């Protein structure tokens, strides 16, 4: 049976060559896209280290001297006004926690960096450590988790005591070997390259990622308490779990009467759902493009095989009829035709995998775990793209094959 299939494929080698080239090309491109999507998905589903559900950003504005309500305020007074605004928000029953920060909230396009050095050692973390200057409740708003199981409340108390909190991978990434920061808790550290003042290391937290598409491997952070704020500070709130409905509208409705302090007013309220979308739209677009290309390729496989086999089954009408007259069942006719396509795919697959391997070896595909070539991932992505193409072959050939298997042998042979 297989031998006959091979000779049949050989006999029609001209059209089959075209199909084989197409299958080869599509196999390689499909593998490449699957591989990239695999990397993206693996990063996406890593633990984030924070939680933005039920969180909102409240943007503050400052009255100018053009406004009739404007009053002269010093920077200190303005700082007090901002604290007062945060306090008033904290009083509201629907709000669970309120924090102020600079360049700190998740999905933030702006960032600052910081250096940290152990006071009694030469160990340093200098490798793109994100600096989060925050009020203590920041860890409660975004639910940071301690590496040793500390709750957000306990972490907030540490910040209150002016202790430093770092992500657990702070040294690991710099020194290329596992050095969990839990081993250094209680030691004193220098910040800002300033060796005149040291701070105690209060806790380390589970890795906090920069966004959903940035791996935790490259995300390091350091939190310290900050207490002086301007209107460009980030005022973030977490509302209670069942209070999301109309929260923005309700707060806006009260903002004029209850939430104007000095020259400070609420200029806008954004949900973290929107902030997250905005921050990651570029990545979402890439995923959208990848999936569209995959669908396009699969549709093309379908069209190509459908068209070719439509012709073939018409040309081989007599052959199929003869086959049936000799006792072949419908199922056998169907399987035989579909197998012709699958065999072609099987023939090109080793070559496709060889090309895939070389692409991965040349680091032209996606990066994950600091590499482009991993046995498991390579085989999985190869298998996924193989199965998807095989499925499309079955559908593409299946339609003409179904028609072919219904041929009435007597009629067809009579025509001849």
């Amino acid at each position, binding site marked *: 049976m297989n031998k006959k299939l091979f000779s049949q494929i050989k006999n029609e080698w*001209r*059209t089959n060559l*075209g*199909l084989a*080239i*197409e299958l080869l*090309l*599509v196999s390689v*491109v499909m593998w490449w896209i699957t591989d990239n999507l695999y990397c993206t998905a693996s990063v996406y589903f890593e633990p984030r280290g924070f939680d933005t559900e039920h969180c909102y950003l409240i*943007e503050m*504005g400052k*009255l*100018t*001297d*053009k*406004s*009739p*309500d*404007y009053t002269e305020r010093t920077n200190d007074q303005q700082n007090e006004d901002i604290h007062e605004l945060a306090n008033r928000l904290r009083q509201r029953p629907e709000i669970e926690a309120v924090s102020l920060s600079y360049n700190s909230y998740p999905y933030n*396009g*702006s960032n600052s*960096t910081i*250096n940290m050095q152990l006071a009694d050692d030469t160990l340093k973390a*200098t490798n793109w450590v994100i600096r989060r200057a925050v009020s203590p409740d920041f860890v409660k708003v975004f639910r940071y988790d301690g590496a040793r199981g500390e709750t957000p409340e306990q972490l907030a108390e540490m910040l209150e005591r002016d202790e430093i909190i770092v992500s657990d991978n702070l040294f690991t990434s710099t020194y290329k070997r596992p050095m969990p920061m839990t081993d250094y808790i209680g030691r004193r550290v220098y910040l800002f*390259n300033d060796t005149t003042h040291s701070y105690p290391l209060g806790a380390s937290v589970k890795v906090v990622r920069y966004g959903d598409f940035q791996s935790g491997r490259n995300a390091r952070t350091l939190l310290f308490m900050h207490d002086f704020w301007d209107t460009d500070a980030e005022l973030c709130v977490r509302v209670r779990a069942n209070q999301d409905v109309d929260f923005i509208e309700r707060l*806006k*409705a009260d903002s*004029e009467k209850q939430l104007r302090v000095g020259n400070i*007013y609420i*200029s*806008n309220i*954004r949900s973290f759902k*929107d902030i997250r979308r*905005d*921050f*990651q*739209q*570029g990545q*979402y*677009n890439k995923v*959208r*493009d990848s999936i*569209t*290309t995959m669908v*396009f*390729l699969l*549709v*093309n496989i379908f*069209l*190509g095989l*459908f*068209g*070719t086999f*439509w*012709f073939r089954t018409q040309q081989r009408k007599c052959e199929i009829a003869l086959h049936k007259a000799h006792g072949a069942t419908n199922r056998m006719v169907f399987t035989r035709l579909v197998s012709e396509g699958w065999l072609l795919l099987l023939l090109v697959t080793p070559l496709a995998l060889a090309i895939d391997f070389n692409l991965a070896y040349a680091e032209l595909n996606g990066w994950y775990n600091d590499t482009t070539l991993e046995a498991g991932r390579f085989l999985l992505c190869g298998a996924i793209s193989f199965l998807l193409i095989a499925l499309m072959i079955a559908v593409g050939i299946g339609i003409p094959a179904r028609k072919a298997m219904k041929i009435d042998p007597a009629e067809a042979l009579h025509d001849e």
Partner: protein
Amino acid sequence: MIKQYITQALAQLRQHPIISAVSIIGTALAIFLIMLVVMMQQVKTAPFAPESNRDRFLHVHYMSLSNKNWSKTGATSNQPMSERTIKELYQSLKTPEAVAIYTCMPMATPVSLPGKAATAIDMLQTDDNFWRVFDFAFIDGKPYDKATFDAAQPVAVITESVARILFGTTEGVVGKEFLLSHAPYKVAGIVKDVSTLANTCYAQVWIPYTSTGQDKDTTADGHMGLMSCTILAKSRDDFDAIRQEALNRMETYNLLVGEDGYQFIHRNRPYDQEKQSISFSANQEPNVEAERRSRLMTFLVLLIVPAINLSSMTQSRLRQRVSEIGVRRAFGCNRMELMGQILMENMVVTLLAGALGLLMSVAFAYMGNTLLFAQPFSNTLNPPTVDASILIHGSTFGWALLFCFILNLLSTGLPAWMASRTNIVTALGGRLH
């Protein structure tokens, strides 16, 4: 001759309705996706009002600043600039036609009538040159001029939609007052709504930044702030001269600020529209070449895979016409003529399907605009609206035609070449090979 091609092509389409449908769908789908890619690129770089001068724009959205006293690890500040920095570095240049200074992105700001509920709308703070660099369509009033700007007067240009939100109408609104950030502003002019796709100048209300004191809100000893700028060149040919002049100016200026340890790092700014459209971070120079390469790869995949498909179908169809080819050859038709005929006949089908694909892509662009043109870091919830002036340019048709031509050549070239080389006797006998 052309009429004959068309008749011939249509007759063939009717002969094999299923195969014709497959070929047309295959071609249309390819052109559809290719044109979507083209449009996605065009909304970023092709000119449309109020950014009709995109091909003469040079942008400096962010700047990098270092200071030898900040740290030994080479820390830099990467962010928008202060007004002073832009004036010194770019507005002082002689070659450009104009330089507009504006805040780096629109900010949601409450507007209202006194005593009424406020609505948050997107506000951009600009100078008066802004109105020369960008061509807004004023339906009433006029932009604020230099005198108004210098006097820091609270005036605003608003869009039709904002006028309707505030006053319920666009008629007779110029000169009226409304509250912007709780301060009274006077309407100077009303412009047509701007799509968020015009992402340099997009906003819903524009005010002089002198009126809020934004120009005085600076960091790093007054070097950095919240301002960006767009340089309008007299012509694209001036780009190199402007870049060179800007470079020289920065060198001189760096000597001056260097006395306090500062140094500006330009990262090859200013960027033209194409480069700016992929520039998202202040501390990295975008790689235009890599972006173009990946777009080229996309086009190749979108062209070659369907081309192989279509060529095998053309091949099958030619096989059934092989005796016709034999007869034509026997009566003296030469190979080139035959090849030309097959190519042209297929071109008719390709163009037909291509037109269908283009139509589909335009329709999809209208309906799926939020999916297709979703902008990263847009900072606004307003959807990227599109209209004909944004989507359809002369070049759009040019690209569609070009891609149809390439697709046709790829898919029919080889079968046509093989058919034309068939031996006359074999062909008359009904065999291609």
